[in-house]
């Protein structure tokens, strides 16, 4: 929290920011980054958002992008692989992000601590300063899944003061809860951006 210059929205300086404006002029777009540990269900969530088949998903080695139209806006969702060796690359995708979606495997209690560490590192990223966070407590269809409130507590979400945040229980496989999360995005981000 050293430098607190408000550099939102145009973080990029120079010509490319101009190009950016030029493109965004016609259509409202939102850049959303989907992160979380491996096997959390990021790609499944992405495909579920895009109404695609979720039965043939393999561990992501690179990244996936889907553009979803929602509430009159174009949501460009970037799902980046969560394996440990890929995580160092996350920060290359954070520039100009409007929203961070963080996905947690609610049934993988052993890795709650690991996922919490990764999230807090992200929160400290310069490029994500002030960027709203939506946490999906995924895999609620599993019997061993922890409830969202418990996970929120473990992550210390209530201590976040510099941004809006939300935790949403969901099952990417069944689609349950996913739409509720999108509605929150719409109400809190999209409407404000417009």
């Amino acid at each position, binding site marked *: 929290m050293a430098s607190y210059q408000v550099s939102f929205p145009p973080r990029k300086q*120079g*010509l*490319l920011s*101009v*190009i*950016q*404006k*030029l*493109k965004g*002029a*016609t259509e409202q777009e939102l850049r959303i980054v989907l992160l979380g540990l491996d096997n959390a269900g990021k790609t499944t969530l992405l495909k579920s958002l895009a109404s695609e088949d979720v039965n043939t998903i393999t561990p*992501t*080695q*690179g*990244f*996936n*992008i889907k*553009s979803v139209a929602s509430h009159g806006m174009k949501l460009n969702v970037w799902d980046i*692989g969560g394996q440990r060796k*890929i995580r160092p*690359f996350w920060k*290359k*995708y954070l520039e100009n992000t409007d929203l961070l979606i963080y996905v947690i495997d609610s049934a993988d209690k052993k890795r709650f601590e690991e996922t919490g560490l990764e999230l807090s590192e992200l929160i400290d990223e310069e490029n994500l300063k002030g960027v709203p966070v939506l946490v999906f407590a995924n895999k609620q269809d599993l019997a061993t899944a922890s409830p969202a409130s418990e996970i929120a507590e473990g992550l210390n979400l209530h201590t976040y003061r510099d941004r809006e945040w939300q935790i949403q229980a969901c099952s990417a496989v069944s689609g349950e809860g996913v739409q509720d999360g999108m509605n929150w995005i719409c109400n809190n981000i999209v409407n404000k951006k417009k």
Partner: protein
Amino acid sequence: MAEDDSEWVVESIAGYLGSPEWIIPVTDFMENKCTVFDEEDENKLTYTEIHQQYKQLVEKLLENYMQEVGINEQQFLDACTSPFARSKTLQTVFQPVLATDDFQMFRSLMVQKNMELQLQALRVIKERNGALPECLTDGVDVMTELQQQEMRILQEVLKKSKEEYDEEMSRRLLLEEEVGSTSSSSSDRPMRDSVEAQKAAPAATQQSSTAKAKAEGKGESSSSSSSSSISSHQAPLMNGNTATQSELVNGKPTRKEEKKMAAQGGGGDKKGPAKSSSSASTKLPSERGSNCAEPKALPAVRVPVKGSEPSASSGPSSKEQSSNSQTAAEMWLDEARKEAGISKPYTELTASQKEQLQQRALYLRQQRDKLQALKKEQQKPKLPATPEETPTIPTPAPPTPEISAEEKKKLQKRKHLAEKLKEEVIKK
């Protein structure tokens, strides 16, 4: 005023985006980096890195240009958001610029570029290995229309001279028979039947009678088909017929084949390298050099024909097909004449027109030689082929462009894959 300003800026930038200063570095970049971009749904991490490099390149190029011309960022923004810049045509021009901020667009540009390069590579492979049936149709794209036309003209010219040669030879033989002597020695035609062989006469007679035939043949032009039917039964003519036939057979099916055969004309086919080349390449320069006024007299041709042994295997078949090929050759010739804008039959041409045609033939031959050299170089970099230097000495037939069945399969598979990918990309 402001709108006029933006219009000027847009036009200036659009002009820059079409100039080599922009196109060359950007295309270079894309061609160098596109190889990792495939059609997989999932993106590789390296894509992002390459996109980043692309952004830097574009930014540098654009900034340099704007500085040079004196456009500031606000002008640029105004210009790009003006309705003028939003027209469909300009949008495509601006695509490479917009791709800096649109990864998906960038990706599709790169995938497309990769596809193009792959298809190009496939074509090159096919070209090198030749003989794939599918590549024949594909090869059409490789040759420009002009080249095709030139090849056709070359073929016509070669055919015509072949025809004339045949005519002259048959005339000569007829004359010889009248005189009671034939020109052919037994060594010239080991495969001919004994009746003809018995008529063998000293070679000296042949030379003199040839001169006569030459003189007689000057005035006549239209009896080629009738004389050829006679000639096909004569031994010395078999060589000529074979060559004509091979030209026809190879020239007809596709343009690609034509090109190839034309290119290999000097080298000849497997059966008798000396034959086709002798008629094609030795005659043209000699005609040009000394006999411009009477192109029907083809003195240089006889020497190599005499020297070369008739091919045993091609004898019977050439006999059967010679009349067919003769008529076909006439048709081709007519076409060539029409194309060249010359309406009169070849023999009625003025000397200058004839010379023109011969010059064209010579030029085409040189082109062909170059092509052949190039091909050989590609095939065997260690063996520099120099067909230009030795036009009369037939180069050995190049290794038949046959590839193993395995390779063929592989190629087909690759081609299939590429087509499928292409389809998918283009449909997107």
